[in-house]
């Protein structure tokens, strides 16, 4: 077997160097970026408290938020479509939960489930319109961006004459389903860490003696769960192959029997699901829903995905890469604060890193496909 394989080696096919093999992995940009960002902040903000328990939780939570929406945006982008309505969807979902729960007084579990169903319905509708009209998803979801945001402002103004609805945490108190999105787990473990001096404890005030970090936020659990789900779905399942095929060349995929339309619509729904998880965790944390929540999140998700090595044209990318892109995003956004840098420079950084990532991705794509 091995002998015949050796005989079959084509002398024109050069052995691929290890570096080149690594270069065509979609996660490469994310890994290099993550290392660079951590090196930078350890050098320039290492003593600012950024890497103690509280600091880690600070950028960890922000990164986890980005990760949740990046997973959805990543699988959708690999399937060859965009969703620009993610940010509006976050605002809309939060507002719907607030209206059902606080204004109408429905139970928290029902409000949350109903919101998920509505948002995934909107996602499915986005996908359906894209499939049926053949229009670019960019335009279709740009329309939903405005429609959803409009309703998010109109509804609370009409019902309550204000744009922020509070009282969510009290209304959801004691609901086991709502606690899947808010609060923390592992409190006992963290108290033990605090008592034994592994992490800091509050020294004064009403919470004196309690650990500075009281547990792992559910938001992080969701982020990790969605990343694992997305990664396994994409790389280890039949459906994952269909996602790559739908984004790589929808017509070629159709000709061999891949249900491209179903794949794309399901990915739109999954993106809406991720936006809903983000929104639910956010309203549970803040205790209120605001009409301006989630602004620009769609672009931040897409940037994280592109930094993570996915091609804007679809058919190529990685959920792990997108998660690393989100981590870079979160670490830099919070890290600039720890390093005492003017926070508006964050946008400058964002623009530069996005440009670098896109150029790198284009180069890598040429390497994979052998284009000149």
């Amino acid at each position, binding site marked *: 077997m091995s002998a015949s394989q050796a005989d*079959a*080696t*084509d002398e024109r*096919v050069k*052995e*691929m160097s290890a570096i080149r093999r690594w270069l*065509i992995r979609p996660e490469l940009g994310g890994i290099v970026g993550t290392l660079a960002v951590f090196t930078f902040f350890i050098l320039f903000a290492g003593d600012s408290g950024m890497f103690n328990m509280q600091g880690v939780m600070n950028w960890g939570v922000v990164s986890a938020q980005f990760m949740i929406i990046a997973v959805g945006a990543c699988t959708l982008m690999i399937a060859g479509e965009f969703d620009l309505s993610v940010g509006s969807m976050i605002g809309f979902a939060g507002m719907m939960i607030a209206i059902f729960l606080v204004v109408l007084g429905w139970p928290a579990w029902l409000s949350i489930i109903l919101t998920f169903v509505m948002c995934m319905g909107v996602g499915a509708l986005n996908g359906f319109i894209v499939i049926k009209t053949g229009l670019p998803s960019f335009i279709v979801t740009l329309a939903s961006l405005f429609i959803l945001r409009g309703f998010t402002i109109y509804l609370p103004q009409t019902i309550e004459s204000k744009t922020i609805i509070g009282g969510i945490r009290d209304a959801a108190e004691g609901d086991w389903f709502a606690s899947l999105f808010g609060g923390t787990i592992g409190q006992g473990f963290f108290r033990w860490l605090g008592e034994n001096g592994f992490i800091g404890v509050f020294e004064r005030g009403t919470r004196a003696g309690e650990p500075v970090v009281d547990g792992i936020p559910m938001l992080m659990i969701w982020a990790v769960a969605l990343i694992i789900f997305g990664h396994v779905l994409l790389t*280890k*399942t*039949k459906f*994952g*192959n*269909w996602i*790559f*095929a739908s984004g*790589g*060349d929808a*017509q*070629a*995929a*159709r*000709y*061999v*029997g*891949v249900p491209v339309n179903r794949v794309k619509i399901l990915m739109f729904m999954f993106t809406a699901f991720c936006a809903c998880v983000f929104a639910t965790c956010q309203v549970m944390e803040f205790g209120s829903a605001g009409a301006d929540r989630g602004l620009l999140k769609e672009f931040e998700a897409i940037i994280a995905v592109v930094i993570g090595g996915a*091609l804007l044209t679809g*058919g*190529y990318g990685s959920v792990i890469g997108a998660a690393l892109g989100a981590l870079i995003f979160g670490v830099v956004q919070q890290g600039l604060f720890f390093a005492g840098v003017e926070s508006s420079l964050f946008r400058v950084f964002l623009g530069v890193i996005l440009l670098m990532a896109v150029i790198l991705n284009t180069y890598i*794509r040429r390497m*994979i*496909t*052998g*284009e000149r």
Partner: protein
Amino acid sequence: MPQPIIEMHNIQKHFGSVIALAGVSVNVVPGECHCLLGDNGAGKSTFIKTMSGVHKPTSGDIMFEGQTMNFERPRDAIAAGIATVYQDLAMIPLMSVSRNFFMGNEPVRRIGPLRFFDHAHAAEVTMAEMRKMGINLRGPDQAVGTLSGGERQTVAIARAVHFGAKVLILDEPTSALGVRQTSNVLATIDKVRKKGVGVVFITHNVRHAMAVGDRFTVLNRGKTLGTAQRGEVTAEELQDMMAGGQELATLEGSLGGTV
């Protein structure tokens, strides 16, 4: 002659007021290479799309293995055993050879209630099939984008045969290829024919058709000008029929029969 696998009787296809096919009849028997020749606009593409379930004929019958068939969509035709390899749309360049090979037919491994893509099996089968077709891969995870046009066609043909195609439709597989690559694809057609698959080879290159064809059907303006056996017809006659007789005479004078 053996029983035909697929018989197309008097197929008509109208698009609005345009008559694309005005009654075409063709049959394909196992183990033959049936060449479908015709100039651009002759109706070749419409005809094979009717055969592969993309278009429904306006009138006419399709008999598959002796039974009347009504293909609603391409999946129906694929399920019956009619595979089509399109010139540009055979493969997805960004995906690996093994992912492409099993696209739409992914092997599945069960772990408890969950079902996963069986990459190990896919890699093994892909390497074995590629070796049979004379393509040496660096590995099953090599991207299709790194293969040449001829190799991509070969992979697509190997894929169709592996998944049990009884009729293999090749839509202009050689039209964008160089000399060596063309001969490789023609050799592949020959291998596939010997396995008992009925090959429908669409081309407008008479020399490619003469190289592997057993029977030749010429389409012109949505009509068939008849089917000829190998040896009953010369390349010049086929060329003549494709271009439509009269106009060709002057053409041939100036080009010296080189087209």
